């Protein structure tokens, strides 16, 4: 019973939940988006700052469960400092992991702390929690680059 829970609530997740990284809204930024998870009410406002093709900053204000908050924190660790293309590729890898229903073995080289979310993929009701910030970041990044304009608020289907 608790091993099932432990698969979901990895130590890494609980650590990020209790001490989230890069929290708060900061300047400068080129795009700001607001995403919600309509089934539960989790919300995030997220800003991106891109400089010379590099993700210079991702800042956010969010409310939600441990999974959504930890996932946001892990996202910022992973993408800040990376080239946008590289960050988008990490995004794609994370998305595939979350949509795998637990069938993919995560690559720690690419995903680092985000491998802790592999267990979440086995809880279909919680996948959306893990993806909230990631979808918001992709949306904001697209907007900041002036490409692929997407609605500022969307409900992502995992």
């Amino acid at each position, binding site marked *: 019973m*608790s091993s099932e829970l432990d698969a979901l609530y990895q130590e890494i997740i609980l650590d990020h939940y209790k001490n989230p990284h890069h929290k708060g809204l900061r300047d400068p930024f080129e795009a700001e988006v607001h995403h919600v998870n309509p089934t539960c009410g989790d919300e995030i406002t997220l800003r991106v700052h891109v400089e010379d093709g590099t993700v210079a900053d991702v800042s956010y204000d969010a409310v939600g469960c*441990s*999974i959504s908050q930890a996932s946001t924190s892990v996202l910022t660790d992973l993408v800040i400092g990376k080239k946008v293309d590289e960050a988008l590729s990490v995004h794609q890898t994370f998305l595939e992991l979350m949509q795998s229903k637990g069938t993919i073995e995560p690559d720690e080289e690419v995903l680092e702390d985000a491998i802790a979310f592999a267990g979440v993929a086995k*809880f279909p009701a919680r996948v959306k929690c893990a993806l909230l910030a990631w979808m918001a970041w992709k949306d904001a990044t697209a907007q900041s680059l002036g490409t692929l304009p997407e609605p500022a608020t969307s409900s992502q289907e995992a």
Partner: protein
Amino acid sequence: MLEGLLPDLEVVRKDFPILTRTTPGGGPLVYLDSANTSQKPQVVIDTMVDHLERHNANVARAMHMLGAEATEAFEGARDKVAAFIGAPERSEVIFTKNASEALNLVATTLGWAGEHQVGPGDVVVTTEMEHHSNIVPWQMLCQRTGAELRWFTFDEDGYLDLSQADELLTERTKVVTLTWVSNMLGTINPVAEITRRAHAVGAIVVVDASQAAPQLPIDLAAMAPEERPDALVFTGHKVVGPTGIGVLWGSRALLEALPPFLGGGEMIETVRMTGSTYAGIPAKFEAGTPPIVEAVGLGAAVEYLSALGMEHVHAHERAITGYALEGLAGVKGLRVLGPTDPAHRGGAVSFELAGVHPHDIMTVLDTRGVAVRAGHHCARPAHEKFGVQSSTRASSYLYTTPEEIDALVDALEYTRSYFRLDD
């Protein structure tokens, strides 16, 4: 033994086959999400299967043997529903798809030409504790007509603030709509009193009884006419019936004054290329082939509840809710959102637990076989009042045992230890 529990509770539970389900780990399933949807007794399942196996035909239009049987079963269901809520007339019972459709029927047709047409400058009054389905249709009505939507607030204990009544209920007020029992706070609202005051200014009153119909005895005919709402809606699946069927009860006077909602088969008297005339109620509001087997199942459901006795169901809910409130009060850091006196509330108990998000509570409870709901329960404005974004809700019903409440409390204590809240 807890006072007020249904006699023969263990026998009653055997009527609900799903209650024997176990978790993957083999533990018992503790279903505390009945305000979301109730479980179904065998008699409802059997009645629906029997209807499909032996009596299936279209209703009203088919004149052959099976058509007559299907019509009798469908109209018999209307009689049973009418008896269940004490409707003054059986024709005042309209079958819809669900409570939302019933509310949309009223809110939409009130925007169209007719005696009660809502227009610019008129006021529609609702409350801050409504389910989204009793907010959005009225927002849409007000947007379309230029009317103003105004709100009864509620206090920190979850009771409506009736001191606003004089200000909200004026000659401009055309419609007052409120929930009888809140799906989030559990509060039982003073429907008779609000109706009387609304009627005094000439407003019509629409009551959302989605949470009341499962729990409270309702006898519309026995209410004083000035205290009786003009319309009342509920949904089948929360009263141990199937999904896909809801009920709009409306007074004959209101239903005859409202224009038809959907056009189509069976809602007409005569159709000519130059125009049509409409059938009387209830057919006027039942365009197209209705959800027949669902109505038949609902008939069996309300008959089942009536056989148990709604006063006994209500007493059981109160006893279990009181027991749950006591148990929850012992969980450190837990705050109940809503009244804490079981005499003034229904069986849906929403709460927050300091330090753990409702989603996480729900997941931990689920792994222990305890099914609750986490989120805003389609009542976001009510959550905002408490400064929270979401909550966890445990909701009991006639089949809930005190042991299941114990399992809930144990699971919450486990949640606290799992998230090391005392470290």
